[in-house]
């Protein structure tokens, strides 16, 4: 996901004024994923939202303390929490198809072995299916797939709770306000 361009950055201006413009754009970028990323199957949106959370986190990490009100530091930690849970969801989304691919390959491998065992016969005897090369792999692969599926469901639920909590505490409005504040000397 390409980051939105930030207009009106001024090299001759102060750090705080420029960083506030940048952080405001990164905050909009993150918040604009809602509501579409709240759908559990929205794999691409969830992944892109993780990148948006990461961008907001790093700009706040670099500037919150010297430049903004205290809430900006909290917001940096919130952005990291979002990035982490969305990252874990993404890991499941990447891993599950790979487990499925290995299972499909295993099936093909076993089928090839059965064809070899059938030789030039007209039919396949039931005992030909005994002790196939992939026979011992199924339990583990099924367990892994089930684990990833349910873990992903739970992580998505956690993400929803996290986001609801942020909305409840006024994350966006409070960060926008903090970006206008300047620390007292």
């Amino acid at each position, binding site marked *: 996901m390409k980051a939105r361009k930030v207009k009106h950055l001024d*090299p*001759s201006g102060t750090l705080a004024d420029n960083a506030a413009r940048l952080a405001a754009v990164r905050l909009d970028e993150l918040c604009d994923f809602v509501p579409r990323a709240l759908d559990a199957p929205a794999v691409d949106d969830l992944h892109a939202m993780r990148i948006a959370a990461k961008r907001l986190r*790093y700009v706040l990490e670099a500037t919150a303390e010297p430049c903004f009100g205290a809430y900006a530091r909290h917001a940096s930690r919130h952005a990291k929490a979002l990035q982490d849970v969305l990252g874990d969801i993404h890991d499941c989304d990447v891993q599950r198809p790979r487990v499925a691919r290995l299972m499909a390959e295993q099936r093909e491998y076993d089928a090839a072995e059965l064809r070899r065992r059938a030789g030039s016969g007209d039919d396949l005897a039931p005992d030909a299916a005994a002790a196939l090369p992939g026979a011992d792999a199924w339990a583990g692969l099924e367990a892994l797939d089930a684990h990833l599926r349910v873990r992903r469901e739970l992580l998505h639920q956690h993400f929803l709770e996290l986001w609801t909590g942020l909305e409840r505490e006024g994350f966006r409005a409070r960060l926008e306000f903090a970006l206008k504040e300047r620390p007292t000397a």
Partner: protein
Amino acid sequence: MAKAKEIPGLSAGLAFSEAAARSVAVRTDELFGHATDVLDMDEIEGVHAMRVATRRLRAVLELYAPCFDRDELRPVLREVKALAAALGARRDPDVELAALDAFLDVTGEAERPGIERFKARAQAQQLQGNAVLAAELQRIEDIGLHVRLLALAEHVRR
């Protein structure tokens, strides 16, 4: 994960260009400070720390982009992104293998062969990722990325 080093004298009223020079210099040294032992596959936290350092460096390069000469910044930023991608090629299987090991620690005997089979693929990817990273580390040394980044920071002051 290592905490980001403090940028000396960074304050709200500091000139944007001076903040750029200081931030890029510190984040650059931080990044290359993690380069030693990063290819050791028994010690996976080094790769993670260096990857986080690339993100911090990228963040400041993007934040302070208007302060830099565009033609000087773009190729350097591209190289940092390439390094980050190579670190990711190693880090992703590192994370997956750690998770699979945790799974194997508690799983039953019946599940073990299937998980081991999946793990073998992740190990092959880790090896491949390490080779990609080794080549990338050599390449950034050959092109003098460390020096170019420090020069970029210094040129802002002129």
